[in-house]
């Protein structure tokens, strides 16, 4: 059961006053800020008559854009697109901006979680919530759930998964390094089980705000 301990999470919603929804989330030492604007009017070329267009922008701390940032945007966009009920807002755009504040491993999982919280906060209609978890294979071949920065950098492989809140099925997955099939399945199962903790955390945060409103 010890494996099921996640890094301490801290979150504040509505951190930004100008955005329609925003969240700042820390998981361990990694901190991410996310803001959601929309649904709002966008250029006709980008409009889709079937659903809202989701635009994701990932800003690294040091400003210079890179190919890896585009990849992160792609992952977050795909993940959030499945979560949002885009068909409720045809011909509109939703902008999701993510700002890295501190990176001590697990940046992308933290960003996905933070994006989900910001989306919840913005009040955009959602199919389900998503929870991202990561897990790594250390030198001895042992699985470590939610590794620390040192563990993650030394690891042979890092696996990241995103689950939905309804069926706990896999929404997004991405891996680094090499690993065996058995490891993959174990990691997937373990992360899936641990995703409950993340959802519980979401519920806590949201219920806090329910009291206010």
């Amino acid at each position, binding site marked *: 059961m010890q494996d099921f301990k996640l890094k301490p999470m801290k979150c504040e919603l509505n951190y930004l006053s100008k955005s329609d929804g925003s969240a700042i989330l820390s998981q361990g030492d990694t901190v991410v800020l996310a803001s959601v604007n929309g649904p709002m009017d966008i250029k006709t070329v980008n409009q889709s008559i079937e659903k809202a267009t989701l635009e994701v922008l990932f800003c690294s701390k040091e400003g210079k854009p890179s*190919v890896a940032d*585009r990849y992160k945007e792609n992952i977050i*966009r*795909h993940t959030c697109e499945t979560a949002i009920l885009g068909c409720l807002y045809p011909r509109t755009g939703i902008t999701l901006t993510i700002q890295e504040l501190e990176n001590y491993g697990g940046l992308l999982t933290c960003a996905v979680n933070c994006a989900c919280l910001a989306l919840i906060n913005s009040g955009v209609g959602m199919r389900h919530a998503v929870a991202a978890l990561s897990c790594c294979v250390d030198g001895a071949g042992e699985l470590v759930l939610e590794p620390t920065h040192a563990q993650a950098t030394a690891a042979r492989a890092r696996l990241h998964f995103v689950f939905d809140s309804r069926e706990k*099925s*896999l929404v997004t997955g*991405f891996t680094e390094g*090499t690993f065996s099939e058995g490891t993959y399945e174990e990691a997937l199962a373990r992360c899936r089980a641990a995703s409950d903790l993340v959802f519980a955390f979401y519920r806590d945060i949201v219920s806090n705000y329910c009291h206010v409103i």
Partner: protein
Amino acid sequence: MTEVYKHIHPSKYFNDYINQDVRPDGRDFDQQRDVIININGITSADASAIVKCGNTTVVCGIKLELARPKAEEPDIGFLISNVELLPLCSSKFRPGPPSDYAQVISNIVSDIVINSKCVDLKDLCVVTDKLAWVIYCDLVCLDYDGSIVDACIIALITSLKTLSLPTVTYDNETEEVKVDTGVKIPLQVHGLPVATSFGIYHKLPRNIILADPSAYEEEMCGGIGANLIVCWNKGLFCGIQKFGGCNLSTEDEKRTISLAKQRCKLVEQVIETCIKNGEVK
């Protein structure tokens, strides 16, 4: 007539086929397209491969250059791979700098190559802190018909396997470099990563997994690009990426993995025979 139907009602057209348990191009759900490889067809490159997976065509050309290694890592060389999605390969792409999508594909391909550790970058260092090889792998898509990553990886690995480095002598005193193209040493390539793309089509009661989706199928499965890419390399995974599309159940996942394994063996055979034939010539 079918063409008109396809244009007017793309999703219904597709659904009609799927309901008959067949894909628009006549394949089964699990069936992959044929792979054709041609090596060293481009003489101006140091190594090259042209790969066709069905209609999807990717050319990989390798150019060798020499440079000073990075100060932080003085004993390793460089392997730079980029994917170009030309405007000529599909009307989805416009001229100009690489689109976001092209950058994502570049990143995926480059990640797979790095993760599989198929080239030891230390082999590329000539003299520590002074001289190292830079392998520029430019992957160019000539025809975009889905599952681009699969074709890119095959093209890249095949051309790396046929690449040999000329011998270099470096004079420490005068810092003079001499290259002898007469003697060439083949580059050591460890392992053989093979990527397999899948599309996940949302259908009740069960989602449908489409192996090696075409561009049209990718579009029906939720936009440009495959939903699931499994990369298998000599008994180990070196990358499982799933983006978007529908959610994946556990059984489906198992099936994709076994399909990926089968595909890996097949592609390996194709590459090996191709290289052997090339050597004989």
